[in-house]
């Protein structure tokens, strides 16, 4: 079970530090755990793992295609590889390697892509993935997960130790806003219910979860009751919970740090159109490229704000 924190604040630990620490803990007891990177060990915060397990940590150099194939091969030899690069290079650049060497091959691989969406900030448009989940969305057998905070990330990494398949982890490297209490437990493929509500359901992921909670609080001030759902697993999507809330609230807003085309918004709308068709409004990237700038500014430029979620919620309610 999970418990939602009463108060929203930035966590003291970076996501990457918890990612590394969790993998170190697993690797101490499990010889199958190994790590690959493509010349981003310094960025991914994995140096402690490389120092502690030099024989199970591989810096492949700047060759993401090779790295993903190597990960697939390692898994065929019985290892459990976690392979990281920046999200666009771990996904978009490696589409065929993930499709053939990993998914079609039924390999057992965890691919980690860092700096989702606007959090790529000063690296700019070339490094700003609004499409990483979308690229992989149509690949059968690939599970897509965006952990929200360190608590969910830690649970996810530990859970994936003994799962089998191809998993893509969309990883925020720096400090997340803490949503869940320490020790919370989740279920892969099931939505985490952050806040109950009756008028509109906000389905959020990643950095937009905290913004959705703020939006729900603002809506409450106006007498609108908004549920907040954390769809951290984009695929397979929790259609059951979505339908339940669509039926209960009568409309839905999606909120993502990703292109709404091929992203969470598309997935939710597609799912509900078959189970419980209700008005759906989408907050996210409107099919444009990323650009350079401080994250705080980019959030405003791309309208990934509580204010936008509030507007979208009202628009969805008006369409009921």
């Amino acid at each position: 079970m999970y418990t939602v924190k009463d108060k929203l604040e930035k966590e003291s630990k970076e996501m990457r530090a918890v990612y590394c620490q969790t993998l170190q803990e697993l690797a101490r007891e499990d010889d199958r755990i190994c790590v690959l990177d493509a010349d981003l060990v310094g960025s991914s915060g994995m140096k402690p793992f490389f120092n502690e397990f030099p024989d199970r940590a591989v810096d492949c150099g700047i060759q993401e295609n090779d790295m993903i194939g190597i990960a697939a091969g390692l898994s065929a030899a019985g290892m459990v590889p976690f392979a990281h690069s920046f999200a666009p290079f771990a996904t978009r650049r490696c589409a065929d390697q993930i499709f053939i060497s990993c998914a079609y091959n039924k390999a057992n691989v965890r691919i980690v892509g860092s700096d989702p969406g606007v959090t790529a900030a000063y690296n700019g448009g070339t490094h700003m993935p609004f499409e990483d989940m979308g690229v992989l969305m149509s690949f059968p057998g690939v599970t897509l997960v965006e952990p929200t905070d360190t608590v969910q990330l830690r649970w996810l990494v530990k859970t994936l130790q003994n799962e089998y398949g191809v998993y893509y982890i969309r990883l925020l490297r720096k400090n997340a806003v803490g949503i869940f209490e320490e020790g919370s437990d989740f279920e892969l493929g099931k939505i985490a219910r952050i806040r109950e509500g009756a008028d509109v359901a906000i389905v959020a992921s990643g950095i937009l979860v905290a913004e959705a909670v703020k939006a729900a609080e603002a809506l409450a001030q106006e007498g609108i009751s908004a549920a907040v759902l954390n769809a951290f697993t984009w695929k397979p999507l929790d259609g059951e919970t979505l339908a339940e809330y669509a039926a209960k609230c009568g409309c839905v807003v999606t909120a993502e740090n990703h292109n709404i085309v091929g992203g969470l918004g598309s997935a939710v709308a597609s799912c509900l159109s078959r189970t419980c068709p209700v008005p759906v409004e989408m907050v996210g990237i409107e099919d444009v490229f990323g650009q350079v700038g401080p994250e705080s500014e980019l959030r405003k430029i791309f309208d990934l704000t509580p204010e936008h979620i509030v507007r979208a919620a009202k628009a969805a309610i008006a369409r009921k």
Partner: protein
Amino acid sequence: MEKNKALRVFAEEIRVETMKELAHLGFGHIGGCMSVVELLSVLYGKEMRIDPKNPKWAERDKLVMSKGHAGPAVYAALALKGYFPKEQLLTLNQAGTHLPSHCDRNLTVGVDMTTGSLGQGISTAIGLAMGDRMMGRNDSYTYLVLGDGECDEGQVWEGAAFAAHQMLDHLIAFVDWNKQQLDGACEDVLDLGDMVQKFRSFGWYTQKVDGHSVDAILEAIEKGKAQHEKPVMIILDTVKGKGCELAENTFPCHHIKFTAEQIAPSIEKAEAVLAAARKA
């Protein structure tokens, strides 16, 4: 005269069975299947540490046929080794078959890696070799077969640099240098120049041998295994379509169509070669 008569016989058996598979279908990647027959004979007939009764044995040697379109030749070798009944060979490419045009480890007993998207096999082979090393399986080797046309792919050269850097001496690779790719002669489509020099400069223990001599292939593998610093590359000088008259007389012969009547004389000749090898 070759010393390893049993391997010559096995090679000709693989050749005949592969031709029969493709004859049943009426089309296929016959050129690139024929050119790797001697290699498959050496690997499955002698060199690889395998147990057909226990195909998932973790300590086994593994083969990544990165030029996955040579699947039919691999299947012939596997069937002859007893991984599955020989009759299954005639199901090649039929709906629901366990023998698809390109190698699939999830469908075919004995196939160690799924391939077909060219350039990717080198990376999965590296992963297998590194995985065995991480697991302490120091007696296990990973064998990799690349097509010469396949070496157009950039990923091959990513892997080439990486394997040398990692000193993966338990990775033994081959380029089937049959000098043809789908659109014609490799030197006309994309001339990669001196493959020996290329791989040598990437840091591989590189040799070039007659790819249709089982003795030469065997000797090259042994030399490669005797050193412990570099991944091993053996450039196989081969003829695309080797031993199948119809394919040898067709250019390009990467993938050709034929009737049963058209290929029958080629099979008869190959069977005669096999009979002679058995008598020798």
